[in-house]
Every structure is written in C-alpha cells, then in structure tokens.
C-alpha cells in the first residue's frame, strides 16, 4: 500500500497518524494550511534547532530566539522548499545561517590588533613624538582605517577583515570565500590600495589639526 499524498493527509488523518507521518508529508500538509502538522514539526525538531544555535551562540536565550526565527522563516518561505530536498537539511541550514548572522551582529567592532597597529604606525610621522602623541596618532589612524574599511566593497572588506582581524592566511580566506587564492590576493591588494588612498585623504583633512597625521617614509607589507 502506498502512502497517501500529503495534501490528503492534511484533511483525512487524525493526530496520531500525523505524529507518525514523515517530515516531508507534514510540511507539505503545513503548506496546505494544516497548522497542526507544523506544530508537530516544531515539537519534533525544536530541540535540535536550539542545540544547533546554542553550539554557535553560547547563550540559551539567544539560541531559543534563533530557533524560533528559523521556524518562522521556514513557514514564511514554505513555498521555497522542494519535496526532493530533505526537509531537515533545509531547516537546519536556515537555523545555522540565522545563528551565524546573530553571532556576527552581536560581535563587537574589531579593535585594532597588533597588525593594524603596525599599519597605523606606518602612517604616523617618522620623527620621534612623545609616547602620548604617538598613541593619539595611532588612535586617529586606526579610527580612520576602520571608517575607510566600512566604505570598501563587501568582498574587499571581507578579505581584509579575515586577513587582519581573523589572522587567516590567503589559502584559508580563499576557502572561506569560496574563491581562488589569486582572487584573494587581488582583493587584498585592491583593498590595501583603497585604504591607502582613503587614509591619505584623511591625513589631508587633518592638515589643520596640530596633531595632523603626516605621511611617513615608504613602508611595505611583507
């Protein structure tokens, strides 16, 4: 005997039968307006979605929020699911993406690390300022650099962020961005050039400031 088609399931079987139904049958029934079928899916997979999010977010309340959002998103985008795709694979991907988005939203703005500080050093004047002046100048340059990075094209900004803030090498960035190492090198090169240009403009704008940042002797990255 073959299984009843999912639309019929929504209207002809009782709750016990629904609880025994497959995910794809239940979701198909949900798409046809059966909210009880969707309830069973939430009960069946709610714990897994919370655990997925919890493994990423390290916070129980946030994990629960993300799991809720994932179910709501699955509901809102129910027409995007195709029965040939495994329902849980589709649902788990929604949850993982939402957890990563949440993680990145709450992640603090990266602070200048040693690498960025060295870059900032490259832009301060070569003569010997006092330590206080040098620190103030580095802060100015770092702030300018962050502002400049925010205006870069997304791919350049991402490559630079992975390189400078996440300490990934070119091969790792290529993997993360699903592109070639050659493309990553080009993105880093263009990004650095754009940053240099913007920092130069920033220095010009600071010319009237008594702490205005002046160009230094050439410094190149290894």
């Amino acid at each position: 005997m073959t299984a009843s088609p999912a639309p019929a399931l929504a209207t002809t079987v009782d709750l016990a039968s629904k609880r025994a139904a497959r995910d794809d049958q239940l979701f198909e029934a949900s798409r046809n307006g059966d909210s009880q079928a969707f309830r069973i899916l939430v009960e069946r997979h709610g714990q897994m979605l919370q655990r997925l999010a919890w493994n990423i977010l390290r916070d129980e309340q946030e994990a629960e929020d993300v799991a809720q959002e994932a179910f709501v998103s699955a509901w809102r985008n129910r027409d995007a699911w195709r029965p040939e795709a495994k329902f849980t694979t589709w649902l788990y991907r929604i949850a993982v993406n939402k957890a990563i988005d949440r993680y990145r939203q709450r992640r603090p703005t990266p602070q200048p690390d040693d690498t960025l500080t060295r870059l900032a050093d490259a832009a301060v004047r070569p003569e010997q300022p006092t330590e206080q002046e040098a620190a103030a100048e580095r802060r100015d340059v770092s702030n300018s650099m962050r502002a400049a990075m925010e205006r870069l094209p997304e791919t350049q900004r991402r490559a630079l962020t992975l390189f400078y803030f996440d300490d990934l090498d070119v091969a790792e960035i290529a993997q993360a961005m699903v592109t070639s190492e050659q493309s990553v090198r080009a993105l880093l090169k263009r990004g650095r050039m754009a940053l240099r240009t913007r920092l130069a403009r920033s220095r010009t704008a600071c010319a009237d400031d008594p702490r205005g940042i002046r160009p230094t002797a050439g410094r190149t990255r290894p």
Partner: protein
Amino acid sequence: MTLAEFARLLEGRGPDLRGWPDGDARAALDLMAASEAAQDLFAAATAAGLENGGAGPDPAFVEAILARIATDE
C-alpha cells in the same frame, strides 16, 4: 579552513564551538557561512551529540512559534 579540516575538528572536538579556540571557531563560522556542505556537517555532528533525541522542546517555545506564524496568516 577547508571542509576536510572542519570535519576533522568536528570529530575531535565536537560541535560545541564554545570549546574551540577563538580562531578556529571564527574560521568554522566563516566556512559555514559560505558552504552548505559545512552546515550539513555541523548539523550532523550536532544531531549525533543530542542526548535524548525524543525529548520535545518547551511547550512555551512551541506556542510562541505558532502564535508568530498565526499573525502571518
């Protein structure tokens, strides 16, 4: 981080990224953001580590979701 490295780390450390060094955890998130295959590996590792897979979520959690989708109707 490659998919193979991610798989190896998941097997060795489990899917709770809290226990991973920060650099590895960030690289894993970047990989998952870009790769559905990495997301599927992560989900499989999470499912394997779930204790008491038959336990359902808090009823309040279920009701909250159903209330939200009801407002969409």
